[in-house]
């Protein structure tokens, strides 16, 4: 079929065609089609994201307990929490825990990534091994840490007291608030390093060696290379890793719940563990939901801070990177 006949055919078609039915016209509508194609996604989001989130918000404004659906009580739960010293302690704990653990994870993770980026023997094997703390289910590693911190059976205490004779008594890691908090942070850092190290290692590998060669020709020092080439080029992936890491740490639950369960006397509760403690074992669903909802502003704040504070890049706003 050549161009002429095609044109004629088309013309004839438009002339002989009956007026469009309602169905055809609706389906020809671009807006409708867009809506139709988005429908599955919207459905998924509604069912799996909006509904639980909405339910959480609703529960936080009811006095629901496990077993009773509860009634709408407005912001009563939040008002109570404002006056609850344990809630405020969980907020400061969470912020402290997230900040210190994230700094630790990134400092050690970056260091590890830089080390692994060098040509070392058994590189592939070492890289695989580094991932171990992250691969092991958190509950398992938490139980291991629980043993390490045990007041009677700690391997650390055993080495210090019975082998090296540096102390007379076993260390009471989790018995008082501050040592307990630091112990949890150490465990969290241990668990978080692999994620940071491997992500940053991936970022390091994308940096073209020619840049370093050029710098070498210009007589740049090791520090200058790191400061002027590695850091700026690593920023985009650092921002992503930081955001994810902050989110994971902020909403951490398993580690704390398995090791201290919020004790001693609620001084190591994070917002997530306190929310669970109050909602499920404590049966105060509404109050637990209110604590969980209180995490949302912090999480949004932390995400924005990481995203725009650390890596303001064009690609993050949907444009090509330069």
């Amino acid at each position, binding site marked *: 079929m050549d161009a002429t006949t095609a044109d004629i055919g088309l013309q004839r078609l438009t002339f002989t065609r009956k007026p469009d039915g309602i169905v055809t016209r609706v389906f020809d509508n671009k807006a409708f089609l867009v809506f139709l194609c988005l429908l599955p996604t919207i459905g998924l989001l509604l069912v799996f994201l909006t509904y639980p989130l909405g339910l959480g918000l609703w529960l936080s404004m009811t006095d629901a307990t496990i077993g009773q659906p509860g009634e709408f009580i407005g912001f009563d739960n939040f008002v109570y929490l404002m006056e609850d010293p344990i809630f405020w302690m969980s907020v400061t704990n969470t912020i402290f825990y997230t900040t210190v653990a994230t700094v630790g994870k990134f400092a050690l993770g970056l260091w590890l990534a830089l080390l692994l980026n060098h040509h070392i023997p058994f590189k592939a094997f070492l890289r695989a091994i580094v991932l171990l703390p992250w691969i092991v289910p958190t509950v398992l590693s938490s139980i291991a840490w629980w043993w390490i911190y045990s007041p*009677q059976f700690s391997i650390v205490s055993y080495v210090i007291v019975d082998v090296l004779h540096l102390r007379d008594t076993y260390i009471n890691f989790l018995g*008082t608030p501050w040592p307990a908090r630091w112990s949890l942070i150490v465990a969290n850092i241990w668990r978080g390093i692999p994620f940071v190290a491997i992500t940053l290692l991936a970022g390091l590998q994308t940096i073209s060696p020619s840049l370093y060669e050029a710098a070498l020709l210009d007589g740049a020092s090791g520090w200058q290379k790191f400061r002027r080439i590695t850091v700026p080029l690593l920023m985009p992936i650092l921002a992503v890793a930081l955001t994810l890491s902050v989110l994971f740490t902020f909403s951490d639950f398993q580690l704390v719940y398995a090791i201290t369960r919020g*004790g*001693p006397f609620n001084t190591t509760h994070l917002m997530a563990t306190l929310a669970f403690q109050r909602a*499920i*074992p404590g*049966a105060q669903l509404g109050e637990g939901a209110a604590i969980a909802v209180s995490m949302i502003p912090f999480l949004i704040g932390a995400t924005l801070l990481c995203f725009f504070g650390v890596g303001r890049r064009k690609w993050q706003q949907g444009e090509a990177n330069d």
Partner: protein
Amino acid sequence: MTISRRDSLALGAAALGAASIPLIGARAAFDDVPTADVKTPEFKVEKGASLHMIRPAKFIDPDEIFWKKNTEEFIKKTGIEVKVDFVSWEDLRPQLAVVANTGAGADIFVSFGADPHIYADKLVEMTDLAEYLGAKYGGWYPLSLLYGQKWKTKNWLALPLGGGTGPVLYRKSWVNEVGYTSIPNELDKFLDLCQKLQKAGHPWGMSLGHALGDANGFSEWLLWTHNAFVVDEKGKVALDSKETIAALKYATELQKTMIPGTLTWNDVGNNQAYQSGAIGMTFNGVSLYYSMLKSPDAKVQAMAADTFTQDTPYGFSKVKPQSAAPISAMIFKHSKYPNAAKEYIRFMMEKEQYGLWLSSCLGYWCQPLKAYSKMNFWNSDPKLKPFAGALDSQFYDGYKGPISAASAAVIANYTVVDMFASAVSGNVTPEAAAKQAARAAERYYKKA
């Protein structure tokens, strides 16, 4: 078969050591339970009935082995299919909430303490079955009545299956060493014993951490020995009292005599420390003694031989200041086969089955019905005696007030435990700790 007290221990240890199925129980289960002549109720079992049951997981092997064995017996006899799921203690309550709120799933649910009272409107009344069993087996213990019946009524919400209690377990040789023949009942003497034990290098230990059973039991003991209580008869919070302050001050002194780290212990903390020989005294259920008896290690068995038991010191209380954690079977209204469920529970509570289960577990879940206390195995080992009266107590979680969602919430949220922990660690003054805890408890009681 009767066993004298003297050779009981050797026999017990040998039987338990040789096989995980203890002989004493299996032999003595049938003829040593006195029963009254009562007509067995006829529950009209629905056609094609099948049952699904959820119950707490075992802590000691025979609990599960003999529960299953009895269930198989029931299946063989009646042809009713019964599926039993053993769920870990932590997951039990969330699962119960789901079953109750969705109105689907298990027909029979065995759970702890106040749970039947929380889900009262969703349960099939068990009065007929409970009255029959009570009449046949010498009546129910006070705690069975308290937890099984709706508050201040004669209507049974659930059927108590048993309960565990935590008396004192101590190393006799160490206690003798510091000049005591047994555990003194007076609080000052008890403190003196603890101080001397510590000086002798055998401190004691009891958790004030987030240990659901141990820490709650210990803090309740501290309250009740000082005549303090969380709420009064009407359910009004009465925790902020001079008795509570006295208990807090006493606990602070007691804490100094303990091994370090008890504030971090969970429910196995004291078991581990006791079995390793690090502590010489603790409060615990029979599971600790049982696992030492059963140990293949001769050293641990020697420890079991040196371990003696006694009710916790009374202090200022006139009756044993020690409660028990009962487990009760509930039948849900959503079950299609409530009669089959009742028949199953009746079967499991009859002496042929219950006696076997109870004695094989050395009374791990102590009997809710008085007649079972006459079983020979209770006398086979004098060390089991304090466990035998588990449900024969005036005290319960939320004592003086009604059993409710609020009393359960105070326990689950460690309100009283944290009060003691924050005071004994010197974090806050006893007065402030009592005020804080009273405020937290008030919130739960206001809601209920």
